[in-house]
């Protein structure tokens, strides 16, 4: 029989029992909506993490001191990285373009009556380009200011807000741990990154930080920028060799430092969200399955109710295959329609989540296609048994059915 005639008959019989059809579709609607919004939530989280990590800087590798000790005895973080290590990396590894030595500590900031506890980052001027920091107002400090351990600071916008409120911070003097610093620049906001807030800190020359403020000889990290297009793995290997040689580490001993590259960090973060997304999606998928059982149930009722109709159709020449197709199509129309409504609800739900919470959501076309095809497949799978039962009815029995 003609395809569209069947679809029309199927739609009509769905419309004739509106409440029942909607209740039967509800499981599919909820399942699809849940799949769509959960996947959107997962994709949104992933996008946020990747965005944050890439805002830290391109081609960035970070060397940090590692756990010390040997023969399985860990002795806590050790102070192994020196300025000479940093220089050696720049000199000996050709694929390293720029380096920035970094020391960090926290400090008490004071400007007239305002106090704030913020991070002090002591580094070189190369830190700004490596870490993608832009100076929005004023200027970064200069090479000669670093050389002379000048007391100059570039403040993050949050720190400025805390200390200066409305007034202009440029050329003003703030007290950091009791010492006067001249504010020469203000950073452009990057946004809170969760584990640290780059907008709440003072960036000062590392010379000043090491000798006058923090009193340390060792670096907290060395930031490396690889030359454009360099293989990060390769850079990592070469840098490791240089540092092992300088630290005189025996060939069987562990490194006393570790090197991270951003691609690795982004990968690790997206692996975590990927796992969550799959878990959430699987839970949502189970509700799709339950929805399928709802459709099967209602189809079995429909087949029983319409036994006489099946008898009439068979009497006037419908073959088993025609009846099978008809009822299968009805199940598919139901699950497909449920799927479409579910997409609408899911997209709306994802939008509502994005509006009402801090979680961003990203609806991917692939997840819509996935949800729709799964719901259609559910219709075929759970519609087949009732449809087959209808097709195999004996015409005489079916015609006699009251």
């Amino acid at each position, binding site marked *: *029989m*003609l395809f569209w*005639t069947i679809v029309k*008959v199927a739609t*009509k*019989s769905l419309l*004739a029992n509106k409440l029942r059809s909607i209740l039967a579709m509800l499981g599919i609607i909820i399942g699809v909506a849940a799949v769509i919004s959960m996947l959107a939530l997962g994709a949104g989280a992933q996008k946020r993490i990747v965005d944050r990590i890439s805002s830290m800087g391109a081609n960035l590798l970070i060397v940090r001191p590692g756990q010390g000790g040997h023969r399985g005895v860990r002795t806590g973080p050790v102070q192994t990285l020196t300025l000479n290590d940093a220089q050696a990396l720049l000199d000996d590894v050709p694929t390293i373009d720029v380096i920035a030595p970094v020391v960090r500590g926290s400090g008490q900031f004071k400007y007239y009556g305002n106090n704030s506890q913020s991070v002090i980052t002591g580094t070189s001027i190369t830190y700004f380009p490596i870490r993608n920091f832009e100076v929005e107002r004023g200027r970064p400090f200069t090479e000669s200011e670093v050389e002379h351990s000048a007391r100059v600071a570039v403040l993050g916008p949050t720190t400025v807000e805390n200390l200066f409120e409305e007034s202009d911070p440029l050329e003003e003097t703030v007290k950091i741990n009791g010492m006067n610093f001249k504010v020469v620049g203000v950073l452009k906001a990057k946004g809170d990154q969760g584990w640290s807030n780059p907008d709440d800190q003072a960036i000062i020359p590392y010379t000043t930080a090491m000798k006058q403020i923090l009193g340390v000889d060792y670096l907290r990290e060395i930031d490396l920028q690889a030359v454009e297009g360099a293989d990060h793995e390769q850079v990592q290997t070469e840098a490791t060799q240089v540092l092992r040689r300088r630290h005189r580490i025996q060939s069987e001993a562990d490194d006393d430092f570790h090197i991270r590259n951003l691609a690795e960090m982004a990968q690790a973060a997206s692996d975590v969200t990927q796992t969550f997304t799959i878990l959430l999606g699987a839970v949502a998928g189970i509700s799709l399955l339950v929805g399928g059982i709802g459709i099967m149930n209602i189809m079995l009722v429909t087949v029983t109710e319409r036994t*006489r*109709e099946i*008898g*009439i*159709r*068979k*009497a*006037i*020449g*419908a*073959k*088993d*295959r*025609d009846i099978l197709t008809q009822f299968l199509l009805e199940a598919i129309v139901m699950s497909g329609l449920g799927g479409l409504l579910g997409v609408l609800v899911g997209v709306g739900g994802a939008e509502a989540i994005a509006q009402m919470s801090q979680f961003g959501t990203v609806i991917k076309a692939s997840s819509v296609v996935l949800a729709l095809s799964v719901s259609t497949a559910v219709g075929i799978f759970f519609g087949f048994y009732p449809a087959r039962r209808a097709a195999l009815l004996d*015409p*005489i029995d079916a*015609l006699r059915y009251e």
Partner: protein
Amino acid sequence: MIIEVESMTKTYSLGGSTIRALDNVSFGVETGEKVAIMGPSGSGKSTLMHLLGCLDRPDSGRYVLDKKNVSRLSKNALAEVRNRKIGFVFQTFNLLPRITALENVELPLLYAGHREARGRAEEALKIVGLSDRMYHEPNQLSGGERQRVAVARAIVTDPAIILADEPTGNLDTKTGEEIMRLFQELNDQGRTIIVVTHDPEVAVRCSRRIHIRDGQIKDSEPMPTGGE
């Protein structure tokens, strides 16, 4: 001969005992005849109708319909025979609800994969005098009109035989008369009609009566006047 039945037998097992619903039945129907099959309930009348209508297969014997032996066909092949060679008219009309009269009449053609289903269905409805009610659904039609739609559905495929099962059973006398007149017109146009009934009023309008009792044909008598 349009129908040749030779020693057809059909048995059913009911609660352990075997019932011989049809016992060695033989008869024939000529093209253009109007035959009444009569008998009390339980006589095997319904079984005979199901077999003639290709809704079921005999256990033994031969049934040749329109020069084709249909007694050993597969389920699918029987469906095709029902679609092409047989037009059913039922006591309870058996129209599909929720679709129009026209769509009901179209249905057999759609199952046959016909291209000009709409036009032929309109033609059939015109023959039964329902051109003005084509777009009504069955529940908007009177009993007589519904049976006319059923007749239109039966003749739309131009079948070899029209098989009517108590076609006036659910109608009042006047409307029943109208339907019988319609059958007469169709018969006059040369169509073969077989009516299963227990109503003598209906049987009297047929050219021949076949009486069936206990699964066997008792007598086959032509009407003295050869019909009306």
